[in-house]
Every structure is written in structure tokens, then in C-alpha cells.
């Protein structure tokens, strides 16, 4: 209820606080009785009280959402799939694969070196034969 200056009375302010506390999870019996008595004679506070009750009731009516039954299974599947992609292979398989790569690379290196040596030897032999032929001529 408002006074002549249009301001809320102290009782209304107390009632508004009580309504807030009621919405927050309950108020004591004595405050509840005072609030009921006040709203019975104050239209503004009664309207506010009704609206607050409706809001709390509507919010409470939205409880109880459940995750789908397979939610945890999907989460764990995604997690384990991601972990498997990032984990090193067990039983030293990853280590073995690395060794194979090194052996293959060393093989290629040796083959190239042997090829170069053979080519050099062949070129040297050809050059020395040409020199010998020129000398005899």
C-alpha cells in the first residue's frame, strides 16, 4: 500500500522482503503469518505475492530433465576414441615401426652410396683407359 506521497509503506517493504525470502526457499512461520495478514489488506502486495508464487511454481515445474539413457556411453565412446588416437601404440608396436623406418632409410642411404662409388669407379676406369690409349697413340 502506498502513502500520500506515493511511496511504499514500511509494512509493504517488509512484505516484499518476506516474499523474496519465501521465493528463495521459505520463511519462518511468524513471518509467514505476518505476510499473509499484510497481503490480505494490501492489493499491491497481494498481486506481487501471487505473481511470485506463479513464477516459483512455473520454475519448479521445469525440474526433472533427464539425459538420454545412452548419454554416458556416447561420452565414454568419444573420450576413448580420442584417447586411442593420441596414445602411443601398446606392446612396443610403435617402437618397432619406428625402427623399420630407420632401417629402410639406412638401406636407401647405403644403396645410394654404393651406386655413387660404382659410378665413380666406372668413370675413373674409362678415363684411365682413354689416357692409356692416347699415350700409346
Amino acid at each position, binding site marked *: 500500500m502506498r502513502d500520500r506521497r506515493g511511496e511504499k509503506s514500511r509494512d509493504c517493504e517488509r512484505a516484499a522482503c518476506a516474499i*523474496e525470502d519465501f*521465493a*528463495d526457499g521459505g520463511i519462518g512461520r511468524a513471518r509467514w503469518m505476518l505476510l499473509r495478514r499484510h497481503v490480505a489488506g494490501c492489493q499491491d502486495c497481494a*498481486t*506481487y505475492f*501471487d*505473481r*511470485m508464487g*506463479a*513464477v*516459483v*511454481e*512455473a*520454475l*519448479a*515445474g*521445469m*525440474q*526433472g*530433465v*533427464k*539425459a*538420454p539413457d545412452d*548419454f*554416458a556411453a*556416447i*561420452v*565414454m565412446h*568419444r*573420450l*576413448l576414441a*580420442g584417447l586411442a588416437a593420441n596414445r602411443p601404440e601398446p606392446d612396443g608396436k610403435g617402437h618397432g615401426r619406428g625402427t623399420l623406418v630407420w632401417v629402410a632409410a639406412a638401406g636407401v642411404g647405403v644403396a645410394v652410396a654404393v651406386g655413387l662409388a660404382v659410378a665413380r669407379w666406372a668413370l675413373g676406369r674409362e678415363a684411365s683407359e682413354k689416357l692409356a690409349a692416347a699415350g700409346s697413340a
Partner: protein
Amino acid sequence: MPNSRLSRDAREDARLVRECREGDDGAFEALVLKYQDQAFGVIYRMLGDREEALDVGQETFIKAYQGLHGFDARMPFRAWLMRIATNASIDQLRRRNRRREVKVDMGPGKPDPSAGPENPVLAFDPPGPPSDIPENISMSNETAAVVRNALDGLPDNYKAVMVLHHMEGLSYSEIGTVLGVPRNTAKTWGHRARGLLCEALEGVM
């Protein structure tokens, strides 16, 4: 907080977290099973879309798993998980708002079938199948729809307080921990949020 003062639930969570850090994936699955409904409920109510909530819910638990090694065991696991869920929901809402802004910037054209209804109150589509939500039959559908619609229009932080307090039963202290604000700030946001929801009922009752 000393261990002796932790609740049984929190002690069990701490044990599961420890086992999980030691490499036991089964322990993490137990945590998922324990908190999936609560986390999914928060995200679902924040977003109002089941498919989006499923994606964000899965991401929430994956982020939690990845962040377990940096998790401060002095904080309750539930509050930490709810923080991840709430932040993920708010991020998703922001992404959605940005997409909407882009659509608005495109100017008039063909009507977009994915756009919201002309009258959001009358055409409000409650998230999820009705069987998921035990609506209170004593309240008129119109009133409940107005409150749901007004909740959807609240600022993200106010909405989070409403969801965490009224739907998931968290105290303001817990909400403060979840949102990273003092308890009194969380309480003030809650009061303002309810005030806005009450204002939305003007003309209805």
C-alpha cells in the same frame, strides 16, 4: 576444507577424481553417470534445444575429463562441473546470438523457416518431449508459457541463477562458486531475475 568436513558425496567424488587421474576410465564413467542428468538439465534449460544440449553436454564432460589434472580438489567436483556446463551453455547462447545478428544484417528477403515465431508467447515450444517435464497442472498453461518465455529472454547470468537455484536446487553459495561471483552477487541476480519474471506476468495475472 578438511576431508572430515566434506559430505559423503563430495568424498566419493574426490575418490573417483583421484582414481580417474591415476588412469581409471571407469571412475570417470561413474562420475558421468552420477552427474549426467544434472549437467544435461542445466544445459537443456539454458539452451532450450535438446539436440544442442546433447552436443554441449557431451563437450562438457569431455572438457571436464581433459581438465581433471588441473582440477583443484578443494572445490566440490559438482560445482566445478556445473561451472563448465554453465559456461559452455553461455558460450553456445552467444554463438547463437551472433548467428541471429548475422541473419538480421542480411536484411529483408525470403522468410527464414528457422527464425522464431511471430508471437513467441502463443507459439512457444517447450524444450523436449512433454514426458520429460512434469508440469504442474494447477498452473495455467498460459502463465507457465509466459514465465518460460520470459526466462528465455533473461540475461545469461540471471537465467543461470534461476536454472541452478530453482531447477537444480543449488544454494546461492554454490551458485557463486559455479559462476565465479560472491554469494551476495548471485543472490542479487536471483532477486532481479525473479523481479523481471514477475513483471512479465503483468497483464496475465
